């Protein structure tokens, strides 16, 4: 067992940014003298070489696969063959929808040490220790991998900093054995819900969550958002219930509040998937009745209180 192997992630011709974040984690785990290799699977893997040529990467492994986009069978087979051929100490993938589709299957089949949604990696007395959240992120859980050779870790996005400097790693092609796919990707569909709001461009967002309780309360928050000049957003349960269009959902599977500078979250508990879309905002104000809500862990200001009372009082001031 030697070295760290990273599986880069790409979609529709673009390298996903998390791919480079994995390089920083690899540097923590690499033992002295060991190499970091990044593998990229694509119908045209050579097109990603430039983007992957960053400091810390020793080798880029291009794997030409017959699927234009992610395919669980083809990815599992190719990555499995690469692991069998190289016996890396650690394999890093992103904790993402694509890896949800094959990483556990690969780990189960090859008997790899395995943990997902890992946000901290370290070596303690030489042994790999990964930290993840437990019980809805209320506790931290350190896991290790006794008696496992290769360990496969799926790392949380936006935790590790991507390297900034470019470099010139060597490029190797890996011939993956042919694999049969049992599913066929058809098309991509962009979520648009007949609502022309652009959450990614909004600088000031007022978001409502499960805490508002019922659909009948939505109009008063829409009116409040208008009055204070904010764009109205929501967390997943509100969009799933159809109270607001999906295009207003902030979070991992919705929109990222990329341009936001002030974010007011009312009745949002702060599930990890929601935080992924907004925790970077410089000024977050959380209003929640539950003083233990996770949202207070990322907010700059917190108001523990009744969201309706606060909303009513705030409305009077504008």
């Amino acid at each position, binding site marked *: 067992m030697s070295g760290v192997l990273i599986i880069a992630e790409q979609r529709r011709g673009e390298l996903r940014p998390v791919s480079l974040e994995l390089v920083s984690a690899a540097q923590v785990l690499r033992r002295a003298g060991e190499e970091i290799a990044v593998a990229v699977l694509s119908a045209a893997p050579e097109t990603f070489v430039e983007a992957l040529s960053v400091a810390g990467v020793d080798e880029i492994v291009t794997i030409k696969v017959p699927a234009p*986009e992610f395919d*669980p*069978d083809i990815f599992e087979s190719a990555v499995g063959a690469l692991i069998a051929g190289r016996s890396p100490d650690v394999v890093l993938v992103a904790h993402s*929808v694509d890896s*949800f*589709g094959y*990483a*556990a*299957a*690969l*780990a*189960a*089949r090859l*008997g*790899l040490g*395995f*943990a*997902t*949604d890992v946000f901290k990696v370290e070596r303690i007395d030489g042994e790999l220790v990964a930290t993840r*959240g*437990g*019980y809805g992120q209320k*506790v*931290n*859980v350190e896991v*290790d991998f006794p008696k496992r050779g290769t360990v496969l870790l799926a790392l949380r996005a936006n935790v590790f900093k991507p390297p900034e400097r470019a470099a010139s790693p060597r490029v190797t092609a890996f011939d993956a054995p042919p694999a049969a796919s*049992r*599913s*066929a*990707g058809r*098309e*991509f*569909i*962009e979520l648009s819900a007949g609502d022309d709001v652009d959450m990614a461009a909004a*600088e*000031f967002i007022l978001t409502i969550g499960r805490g508002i309780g019922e659909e009948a309360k939505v109009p008063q928050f829409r009116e409040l958002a208008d009055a*204070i000049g904010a764009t109205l957003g929501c967390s*997943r*349960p509100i969009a799933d219930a159809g109270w607001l269009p999906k295009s207003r*959902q902030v979070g*991992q*599977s*919705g*929109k990222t509040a990329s341009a936001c500078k002030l974010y*007011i979250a009312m009745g949002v508990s702060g599930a990890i998937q929601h935080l992924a879309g907004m925790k970077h905002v410089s000024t*977050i104000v*959380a209003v929640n009745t539950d003083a233990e809500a996770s949202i*207070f*862990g990322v907010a*700059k*200001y*917190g*108001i523990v209180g009744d969201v309706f*009372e606060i909303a*009513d*009082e*705030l409305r*009077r*001031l*504008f």
Partner: protein
Amino acid sequence: MKILVAVKQVAALDEDFAIRGDGRDVDPDFLIRDLNEWDDFSLEEAVKIKEGRSEPVEVVVVSVGSDEVDESLRKCLAKGADRAIRVWDSGVEGSDSIAIARVLAAVARREAPQMLFAGVQSSDQSFASTGIATASFLGWPHAAVVSSLTYSPGAQSAVFRRELEGGLLHEVEIQCPAVLTIQLGINTPRYASLRSIKQAAAKPIEVLSLADVSLGAADVGEAGSLSRVRRMYVPDKGRAQLIAGDAARQAARLAEIIREFKGAGA
């Protein structure tokens, strides 16, 4: 025709909780148990498919756990599952999601359904891996994070959309039988009526041992797992600066923050 739905009874933490003596889990006295939120959606998806067909479709729920789990299984029976299976052996304690998947796969072999649903992830440990690992043990086609599905029981294939990051969907056709992990929002889970709750009490929960599904002690627990919990602890969290006072004062401070932002932007 049969659809197997794998469910988990998850645990949430009580407001005040304590870490267990060995430092590797929370003291079970402080856990509040309920059916995993994702599993409510995968069960509903199976029941909807059953109700949309004229020929009989059986919906079977399966879970791994002690008799405490019966409460969640009864809930599933009240929401439309026809029967429930629970597998338990004290050796299962300390199993990770992969060891649990091995047990679920063994039940699936015995039940031979045409389709298996699992939730994308559990709300407590959030590994997002049990369903896909189950597919691996079965050697079945699989897909994760399904947010819409078109499937007729017994069909050779199903068409679904995977929910990707950033508001993108990917439409895929898959061969069946398959394992699909189901995302929140794919449907609107029903509430159980009083009548269905009463009827559920009469529906069977079959309890199986590991031997009943041809597994042994080495397949579960620490030996059958790919990871081991070394330590569990409460992290030092960044804490928001709390705005004190009654609602009027809190709102006044919030209004100030909003005006500061607007002033800076102007």
